[in-house]
């Protein structure tokens, strides 16, 4: 089976996110007064062939740990869905 993967890499809680802070600071000038806690990250999409979802997830978790994130400062959330078509 082919699975569609979405990996979101974000800075771990407590790690400064200058990009998010800068975006948040700009918001009042545009009239967005109610927005708080802006955090930025990276979205990485790809597809993967695996026998079942659990196998796909295990491979992606390993990929995240060894390459897509630096575990000292980053963490990842992974979405796995059967590929359409």
């Amino acid at each position, binding site marked *: 089976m082919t699975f569609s993967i979405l990996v979101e890499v974000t*800075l771990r809680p407590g*790690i*400064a*996110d*200058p*990009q998010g*802070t*800068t975006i948040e600071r700009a918001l009042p000038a545009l009239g967005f007064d109610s927005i708080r806690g802006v955090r930025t990250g*990276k979205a990485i999409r790809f597809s993967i062939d695996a026998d079942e979802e659990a196998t796909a997830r295990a491979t992606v978790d390993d990929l995240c740990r060894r*390459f*897509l994130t*630096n575990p*000292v*400062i*980053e963490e990842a959330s992974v979405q796995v869905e059967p590929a359409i078509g």
Partner: protein
Amino acid sequence: MTATVGVVLFPGSNCEFDVIEAINTLGGDARLVWHGEHRLAPFDALVLPGGFAHGDYLRPGAIARFSPIMKAVERFAAEGGPVVGICNGFQILTEAHLLPGALQKNRGLTFLCRPVQLEVTSSRSVLTSDVPPGQRLRIPINHFEGNYTCDKTTLAELQADDRVVLRYVENPNGSIDDIAGICNPAGNVVGLMPHPERAISTLLGSNDGCHLLRSLLHSSSSDRHPAGADATAAAAGAGRLRSEP
């Protein structure tokens, strides 16, 4: 004997010729090494220069870590060969797990490019072996991701083992414990964010970088490490660039 220094060129490195010029000015013999090589000529020391290896894609150093030459760099380091990572080179060494911790974005949200005051805080690295602790150096920084961080256990180890080799006198980027440079337990692998190669002449504002680079050359020409290089790679080929297959 003249110390030979391999300066690893990644796609996107941009300080390699400054490092070569500085090393050669101080009496060493520095040559470029292409990142796509699998073997190292028998160098006495290696420098990973600053820049934006592989465009800093994903994270600074994240892709460079997988360059073919890095396996040879890891072997060289494991055998005691002096390896210095400057700026982006420091980021690559942390990504390659040759040094602990990580470099995150500067606290002040800005790219920093200016001279800073540093204090040498340990002489137990190849880059600071000739410099007495307490000595202050004026050397430029030039980075966005220079804010060193690590977990509490790692920080305690670095402090207890005297492995913080350089500290900022006035912390410019939020770096934990004012850290500007660290070394591995053996002292032969060093990473620092400041650029000593840009401080080798008073015409450039400072020649304080000479203290560090001379230490490296002295450490390299001594017999403290075995020839960590692959002897089958001809020295003659060391400076030649070759495109990737």
